[in-house]
């Protein structure tokens, strides 16, 4: 077993068994509608499901939006289901628990039902309430949210303080008092949080790599050799960036923080380095803005002010390397392997996204050369 969180170690073993499964076929829309109705028949008799529609976007889960009518009071929900493989390897139970833990503290979609063992739906599934808002200005025609999204003026100055306040709330959250049974706190020694993290992603790379990229091997070895201590264990969102929150386009208010599936307990610097990664930012008139919100120095200074947490530049550098490595693993290993095995409903998107792989190899080589020169 991999030296990582126990639940994640189990996931890594389970996914090996899925490797030989036949091609994944997208769920039939009418069958999903029938499954949703029978789910609610057993739990909320009298409630009726209608207007079931498949959602676009995303690169890991199959998603359906639907209306649930209870005594004439309609409400909209989203069903999220796992294909055989995807661009991430995550647990619906952990996502469900963390959404419920932050409900009332942060704007998050309310998680209402979970079918973790696929007892009813054909694969693990979760149902969440729909939250109004957009992930990008409607004038932005890019199809993959978050990559190259430009909020622009004045929106970015309205969104940025909320974005940083919410990140501060996540990092300062009292996870020890929360109901998070699927999470294990890495408290054995100061290096365990990040050692667990590295071993989890390394095992994914070993299982899924479609090419033996030398720079990735060097990065893996560097990350293993230089694991920093983590003095304060935080909730780490794992994918905190523009594109992964909803906002009201009329006033710029963030209405929901999304995509918690890669959440874990560890070093908060991972989130900071992620949000200011080049691939999630904008280059306009020679100015780079992380998540199109602010240049990195401003972003970090405002985070420190909002959170009271000091940013350790050495750790930020470590997690900058980690995030480029993790990003490559997501798009060029997991995504490509899922597409090659025909184990996802979005193979054509996954092979498109894999083209970002060289960007991360370039970044890793640049960062490791800086290390070599010191």
């Amino acid at each position, binding site marked *: 077993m991999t030296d990582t969180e126990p639940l994640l170690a189990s996931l890594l073993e389970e996914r090996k068994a899925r490797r030989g499964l036949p091609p994944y076929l*997208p769920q039939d829309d009418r069958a999903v509608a029938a499954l949703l109705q029978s789910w609610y028949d057993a739990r909320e008799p009298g409630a009726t499901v209608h207007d079931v*529609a*498949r*959602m*676009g*976007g995303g690169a890991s889960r199959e998603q359906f939006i639907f209306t649930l009518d209870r005594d004439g009071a309609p409400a909209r929900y989203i069903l999220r289901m796992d294909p055989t493989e995807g661009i991430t390897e995550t647990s619906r139970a952990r996502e469900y628990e963390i959404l419920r833990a932050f409900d009332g503290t942060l704007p998050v979609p309310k998680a209402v039902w979970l079918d973790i063992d696929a007892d009813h739906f054909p694969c693990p599934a979760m149902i969440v309430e729909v939250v109004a808002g957009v992930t990008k200005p409607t004038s932005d025609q*890019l*199809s*993959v949210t978050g*990559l*190259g999204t430009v909020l622009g003026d004045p929106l970015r100055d309205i969104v940025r303080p909320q974005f940083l306040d919410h990140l501060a709330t996540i990092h300062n959250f009292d996870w020890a008092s929360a109901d998070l049974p699927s999470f294990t706190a890495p408290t054995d020694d100061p290096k365990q949080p990040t050692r667990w993290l590295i071993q989890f992603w390394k095992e994914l790379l070993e299982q899924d790599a479609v*090419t*033996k*990229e*030398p*720079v990735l*091997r*060097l990065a893996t*070895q560097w990350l293993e050799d230089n694991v920093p201590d983590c003095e304060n264990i935080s909730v780490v969102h794992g994918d905190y960036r523009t594109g992964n929150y909803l906002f009201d386009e009329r006033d710029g208010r963030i209405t929901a923080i999304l995509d918690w599936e890669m959440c874990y307990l560890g070093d908060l610097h991972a989130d900071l380095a992620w949000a200011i990664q*080049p*691939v999630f*930012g*904008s*280059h306009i008139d020679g100015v780079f803005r992380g998540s199109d919100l602010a240049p990195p120095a401003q972003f970090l200074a405002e985070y420190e002010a909002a959170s009271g947490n000091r940013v350790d530049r050495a750790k930020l550098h470590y997690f900058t390397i980690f995030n480029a490595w993790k990003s490559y693993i997501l798009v060029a290993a997991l995504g490509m392997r899922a597409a090659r095995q025909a184990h996802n*409903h*979005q193979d*054509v*998107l996954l*092979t*498109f*996204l894999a*083209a*970002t*792989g*060289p*960007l991360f*190899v*370039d970044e890793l*080589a*640049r960062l*490791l*050369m800086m290390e*070599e020169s010191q």
Partner: protein
Amino acid sequence: MNPSVDDRLNSVLRALQSVVLPALPESANLAREQIMLAMGHIQIIQAQRDATPAHEAGELADMSDMAREMLAIAGGGEPIAAARAALAARLADEDGLSRDRAEAIREAIDALLRTAHAGGERDYHRRLAAAILPLGRARAAKDRAWFAPMGFDSEMSA
């Protein structure tokens, strides 16, 4: 050649754009998105088609250069000697497609890096890394330029 590759790909694009896409209801979000992505893929593949053999040959040349640089660095014990010999053998093997040969060299490079790291050959490993990283970066720059039409690389389009 009649029909040419371009004739055939253009006809596929036209069928997707003028027949399949309009036949999909507005509510078919995923299907519409995937048709658009499929068309994008085909258009980029079409634009890269003539340059693809040279790109793959260039990749093989770059991986071969990296292998030669690594083999020029002396050091290590018996396990490393075996990994070096395997890399040299891959480099000398001229059978197969360029892309397959490039991957075979990558695998042998990977094995040598793992052996050097696991064996605690720190100085030797450091010298290997110093040789690989600039070459890896130069290769990545070519691949970034190759995939720039996909539109994800904000630095390339800045």
